[in-house]
């Protein structure tokens, strides 16, 4: 009795998931992320009581504040996730292909009757499943703790916003995951591909911002210069920063979790004139970050296609 084709794919996925869960690297990262969650929960709990007392407005989105409230000493949960998420993605993908090749298991698996793309697809799907489970668990953990502290359940809108936030985080991490899978195909040594991933991550989170600021200072020296009249330096800075996946992610998450944000980018007096300072509805917030989400998904797909094609063309030799 033989099963159909599809089952083989899930056999590989199952094995990959087992591999990840048994792996110390993954266990350590999960502990780090769990600890950050708990510590940011702690600051939130301490600070949220002040926040609630100071502005007793109806529909103040207390649950969303669980994710966005930070203190001077500790940043909020979303800032943590924006910082650690890439690291998680890189850690889960950097040795996906090259370590199998170095151990000689890739050629053995490939000489079994399975389509070649099953391997790379299964690696991606397995990591995606683990990330999804992890993020939904964390999200619901925060919700649950928040429920106990606040004392009443989240509104449907808050709940949906949180779900969208979790999905967005999964997309964000899978962008880094795919990038690191691609590096694991390009570089023969896992250490090299891990370093390449970390280098890109550092560049995006630190150096690029410095370079943009420097360039803007050089080309637009003062607010009153002739170029500044054509394009405002602040606006230029935002446009340049939006190339970064982490910038896209942080703009999108803050918009989703802070309904009071009405626009991304500079507002002119004409735009603000006459508008009421109401929070946006979920659909409006989503509309605002639609481009961000699309760009993140596009980035993810680009890296996946790159790794897919190079894996399919790769000549696999025994080590």
């Amino acid at each position, binding site marked *: 009795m033989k099963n159909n084709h599809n089952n083989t794919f899930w056999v590989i996925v199952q094995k990959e998931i087992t591999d990840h869960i048994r792996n110390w690297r993954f266990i350590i990262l999960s502990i780090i992320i769990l600890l950050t969650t708990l510590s940011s929960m702690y600051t939130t709990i301490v600070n949220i009581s002040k926040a609630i007392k100071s502005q007793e407005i109806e529909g103040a989105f207390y649950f969303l504040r669980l994710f966005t409230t930070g203190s001077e000493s500790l940043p909020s949960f979303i800032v943590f996730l924006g910082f650690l998420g890439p690291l998680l993605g890189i850690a889960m993908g950097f040795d996906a292909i090259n370590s*199998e090749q170095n*151990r000689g298991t890739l*050629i053995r698996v490939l*000489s*079994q*009757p399975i*389509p070649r793309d099953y391997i790379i697809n299964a690696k991606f799907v397995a990591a995606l499943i683990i990330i999804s489970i992890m993020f939904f668990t964390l999200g619901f953990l925060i919700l649950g703790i928040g429920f106990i502290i606040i004392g009443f359940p989240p509104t449907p809108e808050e709940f949906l916003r949180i779900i969208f936030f979790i999905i967005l985080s999964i997309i964000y991490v899978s962008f880094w995951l795919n990038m690191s899978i691609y590096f694991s195909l390009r570089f023969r040594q896992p250490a090299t591909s891990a370093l390449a991933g970390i280098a890109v991550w550092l560049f995006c989170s630190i150096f690029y911002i410095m370079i943009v600021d420097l360039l803007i200072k050089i080309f637009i020296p003062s607010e009153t210069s002739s170029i500044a009249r054509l394009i405002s330096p602040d606006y230029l800075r935002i446009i340049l920063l939006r190339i970064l996946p982490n910038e896209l992610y942080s703009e999108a998450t803050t918009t989703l979790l802070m309904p009071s944000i009405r626009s991304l980018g500079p507002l002119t007096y004409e735009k603000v004139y006459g508008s009421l300072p109401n929070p946006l509805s979920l659909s409006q917030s989503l509309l605002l970050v639609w481009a961000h989400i699309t760009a993140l998904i596009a980035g993810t797909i680009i890296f996946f296609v790159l790794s897919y094609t190079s894996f399919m063309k790769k000549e696999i030799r*025994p*080590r």
Partner: protein
Amino acid sequence: MNIIELTNLTKKYGNFTAVDNVNLKIKKGEIFGLLGPNGAGKSTLILMMLGLTEPTYGSAIICGIDPIRNPIELKKKISYLPEDIGFYDDMTGLENLVYTARLNKYSEQEAQERALELLEKVGLKEAINKRVGTYSRGMRQRLGFADVLIKNPEVIILDEPTLGLDPTGIVEFLNLIVGLSKKLNITVLFSSHHLHQVQEVCDRVGIFVNGKLLAEGNIKDLAEKLLGKHSLIVEIGVKHKDGQEIKTEDIKKILSQFEIISIEKRNDYFSIECKEDITSEVAKSIIKSNIDLIHLDKKEYTLDEIYYRYFEKNN
């Protein structure tokens, strides 16, 4: 019917030709040894037969299937044991085999049964629940052989299967392969640069150098093909009844009626190179004359000799 048919198979990497116009036919149930020095292109040839590397031109048809057109169908029938087989070290031997079986579409339960059965067959019963990381080289190789058998293949390709095994390990492993191949009528192709082993187990041998298949056939054919003429050596040990020293001339005189190429003397032993097998005639003539025959040996070419002589001749 030929189960493996290679026609003008060629692989080029840029200007370098790794495999050059190879033609080869292997029958079902045959054990074929591919013999050649390191870097001769044996692995590339094997990878093309598996469809893991595309030939520049020419074709390989295995079990009637083109590996490029229908690799998945082919991989159901062909198994490959790479030179240094890799297992998931943090999984046990059993888990590794079950995984391979599952990839071959066995159900979980069937996979377990089949893996256990094969582990017993290759003599790894005690180590099934140990992590592969703790296995010795010989155990890994045997696990590899179980891994290769799990899909009930028609053809097995073994790349340097005896590399790094100790002498008894090699004998055991080769006996295992030959025994199972004959029993299950599996075609085996294995590559090696250990001439002695190849000679011992293979029905037919192909000599593969610099991407070219120089000659193939059994050992006798190879000697003829590579060294031109076929000659063999009869070695005799003699002793004069009176204790006198026997000279080469004496032997030459005794054997004058036969066609002899050369006679070489080493103490009381003579190596007689001749064109045909005249062992018994030599023995008779020696005994008839007044000399005692104390040693008689017919030396056929070993693969080693063929191999080294061939390279001597060409360098």
